[in-house]
């Protein structure tokens, strides 16, 4: 039996560790659960989105704003659609970018179908380490993640944290985000400060 962190707990810990100046980019399932926990002017819920697009989008913000810490929360299904984006992040030397991978082994928003990575036995931490991420961690219990989350976010980047999480609660997946135009305008304004 694989140990998994309840999804809300994993995100609550991240919200508690994030600094007021950090940008947080969410995507897919995370963009529906995060607003139930945190509502910050530097949050950007990248929906509607192309799966696999959140990491490149966050990378762009990180390159444009090197003085800021950028945190991107990606699901395992999304990462698998653009696994090469890890290489792009490392190659560009995005030392101010932290990727938090929520790995539940399934495509949550489409009903829970298993990803190919489960059968392949992918070690996402080893993948990130091998392409050059400076700080790599893996957590499958809430207490350890809570103890080390702030340290991970402040470690030399680019950082990659693999969280083994439980699927989202169905009622949590109904959250509606602010309209994209409103989010874009707010984030642009905040990033200009």
């Amino acid at each position, binding site marked *: 039996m694989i140990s998994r962190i309840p999804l809300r707990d994993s995100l609550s810990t991240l919200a508690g560790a994030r600094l007021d100046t950090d940008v947080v980019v969410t995507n897919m399932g995370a963009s529906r659960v995060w607003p139930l926990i945190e509502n910050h002017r530097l949050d*950007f819920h*990248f929906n*509607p*989105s*192309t799966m*696999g*697009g*959140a990491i*490149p*989008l*966050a*990378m*762009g*913000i*990180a*390159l*444009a*704003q090197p003085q800021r810490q950028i945190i991107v929360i990606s699901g395992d299904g999304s990462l698998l659609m*653009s696994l*090469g*984006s890890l*290489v*792009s992040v490392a*190659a*560009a030397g995005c030392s101010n970018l932290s990727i938090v991978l929520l790995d539940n082994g399934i495509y949550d928003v489409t009903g829970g179908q298993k990803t190919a990575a489960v059968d392949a036995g992918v070690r996402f931490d080893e993948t990130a380490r091998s392409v050059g991420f400076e700080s790599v961690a893996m957590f499958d219990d809430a207490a350890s993640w809570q103890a080390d989350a702030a340290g991970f976010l402040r470690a030399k980047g680019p950082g990659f944290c693999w969280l083994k999480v439980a699927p989202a609660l169905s009622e949590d997946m109904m959250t509606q985000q602010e309209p*994209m*135009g409103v989010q*874009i305008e707010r*984030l*642009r304004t905040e*990033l*200009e400060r």
Partner: protein
Amino acid sequence: MIFTGEEIVAELSGLGITHAIWIPDACIGTWEWAFSASSDVQLIRICREGEAWPLAAGLTLGGKVPVVIMQTTGLFESGDALRNILFDLKIPVVSIIGARNWLNTESRDTARKFAEPVLQAWGVPYQLIANEHDKPRLTDFLRSCLDAGHAGVALLAE
């Protein structure tokens, strides 16, 4: 190639472009040394064309002025990412797309055949640069897109 590396970097630099996000092909790949030598335009290497559009969006949100550079095959591959960024997020990304085999009028390459129909289907404004005489159109077109705040593709014959 219609533009040398020095020429294209000078044009992009003059437009205020800060980042060139690319996957090279055999033609536009000859520009690599010029980008690498530029202090004005930073070259960003990616692994798959679908990364380019959201990456450009992030740079734009952060106040930079990126250009996406890839071949028509990459344009086709990255269509959903383009759709999302240009039409859902409405972020005006400009690009230079190398039109594979455009200069080979006998070519039966489907990448050549579908280049313009795909752009027309997407409804993305584009400007074909088919020969040496069209060279000024690249800068004029990209400048008009940037000034107007809309997306645009400079379709560069190869």
